[in-house]
């Protein structure tokens, strides 16, 4: 493979064909998205969820997870949001993300004033030690966030 250098004499040595291949190469690079850090993908998903609004780590959300998971395949989680859950003041939805999974999305819980209490539990997969992030959208359009770090261990002789 040729080293890409557009400076000095190397440019003169370039044939027409080389230049064509190089352009094609640059185009290919342009259309294939660059690998993005998983944590960045998570941040992007949060931006999409909030529409760019600030999601404050205000203590309004609690995210209950084990500090150490015995196996990443089944990690329990409970998310709850402090809200009166009345007709004009309630939690609309809570998105849960894992920032170092192959894909950060985990689940989005949709609540209603009928929920009475904004709380949901499930069991999730964690590919490795990472942050789990919950973002809540309230009926007044504000957003709140909570984070938990979960260590994922590998058992005995590898299983």
């Amino acid at each position, binding site marked *: 493979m040729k080293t890409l250098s557009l400076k000095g004499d190397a440019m003169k040595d370039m044939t027409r064909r080389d230049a064509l291949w190089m352009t094609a190469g640059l185009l290919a690079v342009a259309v294939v998205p660059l690998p993005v850090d998983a944590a960045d993908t998570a941040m992007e998903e949060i931006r999409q969820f909030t529409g760019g609004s600030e999601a404050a780590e205000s203590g309004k959300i609690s995210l209950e997870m084990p500090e150490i998971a015995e196996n990443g*395949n*089944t*990690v329990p989680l*409970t998310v709850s949001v402090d809200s009166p*859950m009345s007709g004009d003041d309630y939690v609309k939805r809570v998105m849960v993300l*894992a920032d170092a*999974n*192959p*894909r950060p*999305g*985990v*689940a*989005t*819980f*949709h*609540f*209603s004033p*009928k*929920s*009475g*209490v*904004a*709380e*949901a*539990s*499930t*069991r*999730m*997969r*964690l590919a490795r030690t990472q942050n789990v992030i919950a973002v809540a959208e309230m009926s007044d359009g504000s957003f709140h966030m909570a984070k938990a770090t979960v260590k994922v261990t590998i058992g005995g002789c590898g299983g």
Partner: protein
Amino acid sequence: MAKSKPRVKAPKAAGKGEVITIKTLISHKMESGQRKDKQGNLIPRQIIHNFTAKFNGETVFSVDIEPAISANPYLQFKMRADEPGEFEFIWEDDDGSVYSKKQKLSVT
């Protein structure tokens, strides 16, 4: 397991205004679409991608589910019992299957 089977644990009766807890579990392998088979080919994703709980026809709670939810998905949530009626719990599978279960609730 070959066929998905839902389980639900919800009270049959509640006091008016009481917030009740509903627990659900369904057998499903939740194939993430990230795993490879022995030949190195990607195993296509097949998950339960949505769960909806309705009460008297009205959606009270729902979940958009991603492959990061564990096999045999467990979901627990709350509802305020305002009036008597019937729950309908619905699970939607990537393969088009829909699993559902109904249960009555009396309110005193």
